[in-house]
């Protein structure tokens, strides 16, 4: 296993298979938008998509990714859901420090791909594994609904 498909591009990887996907993305692929908050899959800051499914990249060996396509926050704009989510995120100013934002954007995009018109409870459930200490939760909830409405137009 020497390569990894990230955001539509194939990266040649020089790291033992047990290296965390997070470290490979940041140090080998130069994609610094994926962030480490806890290293234990408890905060959601490092979340990425594997074939559209959200996973924590901090406790996943990169070799386990196999041929799956990885999407990081940098690559979200390639899908209508991700692009809508980005616009909505800016429109709602859904950040303060923004350290949690990458993971939230990834999770919200994955939700919209599964369910284009999620109800409030569904959005909260989808984002519940993501911690935010600055308290932008309501803005993020509004951003998801704004993106969903945008997609429905």
């Amino acid at each position: 296993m020497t390569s990894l498909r990230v955001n539509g591009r194939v990266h040649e990887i020089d790291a033992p298979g047990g290296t965390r996907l997070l470290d490979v993305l940041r140090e080998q692929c130069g994609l610094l938008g994926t962030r480490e908050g806890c290293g234990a899959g408890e905060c959601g800051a490092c979340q990425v998509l594997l074939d559209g499914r959200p996973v924590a990249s901090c406790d996943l060996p990169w070799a386990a990714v196999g041929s799956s396509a990885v999407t990081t926050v940098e690559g979200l704009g390639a899908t209508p859901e991700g692009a809508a989510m980005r616009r909505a995120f800016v429109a709602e100013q859904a950040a303060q420090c923004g350290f949690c934002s990458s993971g939230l954007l990834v999770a919200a995009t994955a939700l919209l791909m599964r369910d284009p018109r999620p109800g409030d409870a569904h959005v909260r459930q989808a984002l519940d594994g993501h911690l935010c200490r600055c308290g932008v939760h309501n803005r993020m909830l509004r951003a998801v609904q704004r993106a969903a409405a945008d997609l429905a137009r």
Partner: protein
Amino acid sequence: MSRRSSHLERQPRPAQWLAWSADGGVRVRTGKVEIGQGLHDALARIVADELDLDPSQVQVAAASTVSGPDEGVTSGSLSIQEAGAALRWVAAAVREAAREPAAERFGVPADALRFEAARWCSADGRKASIAELLPAAWYHRPLDAVPPRGMGQRRRWVGQALPRPRVIALAEGQARFIHDLRWPEQLEGRVLHPPRIGDRLGALELEAVRAMPGVRSVWRDGDLLGVLADDGVAADAASRRLASIASYQAGPPPPTTEPSLRMIDERVAEAAGPTVQASAGPIGAPTWTGTEVPTSTPTATATSCASASATMHPARATALRTLRAVYTKPWIAHASLAPSCALACWSGDRLQVWTHSQGIFNLRRDLALAFGLAVEAVEVQHVEGAGCYGHNGADDVAFDAAWLARQAGGRPVRVVWSRADEMTRAPLGPAMRVELEADLDADGLVCAWRHDVHSPGHSSRPGRSATPALLGSWQTAEPQARPAAIDVASAQGGGAERNAVPGYALPAWRVRAHRVDEGRRRSSALRALGALANVFAAESFVDELARLTGRDPLRWRLDHLAHDPRARAVLQAVADDGGWPPPRGAEGFGTGLAWARYKGTGAWCAVRAEVHAGATLQVRRLVVAADLGTVVDPDGAANQLEGGAIQATSWALLETVGFDDDRVTSDRWSAYPVLRFSQVPTVLVHLIPSSEPSVGAGEAPLGPTAAAIANALHDALGVRVRDLPLTPERIVAAMPG
């Protein structure tokens, strides 16, 4: 605003604040740091208004000890007040200084000129930019103490809600944090600190760790351990191995000068009027010797005490009874979303540090103390980290990076803490105990009010003591003494006593702050400091008082605020949003409100909480009303208020640092739950329109939110819980047998 801010007094030369760019824009410097609160965008707007520029033409440089002004610590909701006022003054002064030279150049009266896009213009269309009108030497002369003409009158950008450019970068994954800094030749470092202050590291064999792949070197210095490695993966692996072989023993008492649990000092503030000398009873040291937070007895509700009142209050024979209650809050963690991080590089005896500290000049001073350097030999540059709510591990990890970088042969070293370090080694917001008493007359009116607060000091920040306030510097083979946590002067906002002085018109009151030693725990500044416990206590007590004397809690407050129309306005705003008295909901639903003027000198803020008390206490809706004076960006201010309200909800419902013999046991998120998306209330914000001077927003809602939730819980179930957090166990325990 007719006086110069103290920051401008100390640094009165325009060159310290502002310079023109070749493209006609302006570069400004500030000593206040960006910590996700949007401060630098707000400062750009203020300058843009004075110079009639687009905010995108105003670049605010990251704070630096090399080139920027010293504006102390970015704390206390003071940045717009202090840094904003300084930059507004400087920008207006620059504009007005160029007016006369422009008039001369054009040969027209100064009053006939028009100002547009940083240029003075004559009626016949001639234009000259400030940059060409003022000689370079002008910027190095101190500014006049007289306010510049027209300062603060241009309002194109101030008051507008504009998107922050940083949020666009975040959306695209392109925003950078200190964790993302990479220098050529950089090494990765990790540092292990003993689990408790004063613990001693036992003997250990380091050779096996030194032999690990990617490890450059392993260092021991007293009770500190450090590893330098080629990359983060190798550094983490070595750090884990070190942790598994390190053993620690309890050492002698920590080398602060104060014995544990002794009252260190006492501050008393009293209102003019009838003096209340005698206290209601002996008030000893607080009883938090054990691992638990001091808890009040739920049955210690207000008591009638007619016989005691005469001696307690000889000046007022009308006092018939005394109500007394005790409130507490536990130790609370900063629990920043990112672990602390710093980079350091030595070249000879010069040290460069990159940090997310809130006080770069103070950090520079303490680093110089710790390493025996002249202050000028240390350069500290601010880089954005994760959201910061007080004195967290940022300064400590800067010491760690500098300490390890000394062994790196001139290469830059990046040190990042682990999640466990962040939760267990960083300073904490201390536990507090608040004792309140009110003497009531025959009509149930308060004739005297007493507020006693017991707490460790709320600041052990760098820059204030004879020895460095940096964790690692106390743990080397030549340890420096650890400075005790103190409270800054009451006039500067105080610490434990913050917001203890009642905002109500009361015939007599007395406030006493009893500072106790923090022992082996690390106590320092966390958002709102003592205001959380003091407002939680006082505003809960007011509710109790009002209900016990048959008065509506809102009415009671308004009746005691005749002198403060801005306080009445915020209370009325939250009362009106949803109606007051609140419509009676189904069983388990309740509504409460509370307010405070932050520090007695800052923002007026009232909060309405609507809760449902079922198996757990759920906060469904918060309404926040604030009077912040002039608001630079209403959406930015709302974001700060919402964030504060949500953080306070998390504190009120969930947060408690766990200890085992003073070792922090809540070392991960699962052991230190914070409020999640499924638990977050809707938050509505009302800003009271005002053109008064700006006051900060970020800390104002914390105390009122906690109190409003407790009052809503009482409204829902009729039980009064006086200890934070308001857990299901405490709610059940407070229910009548």
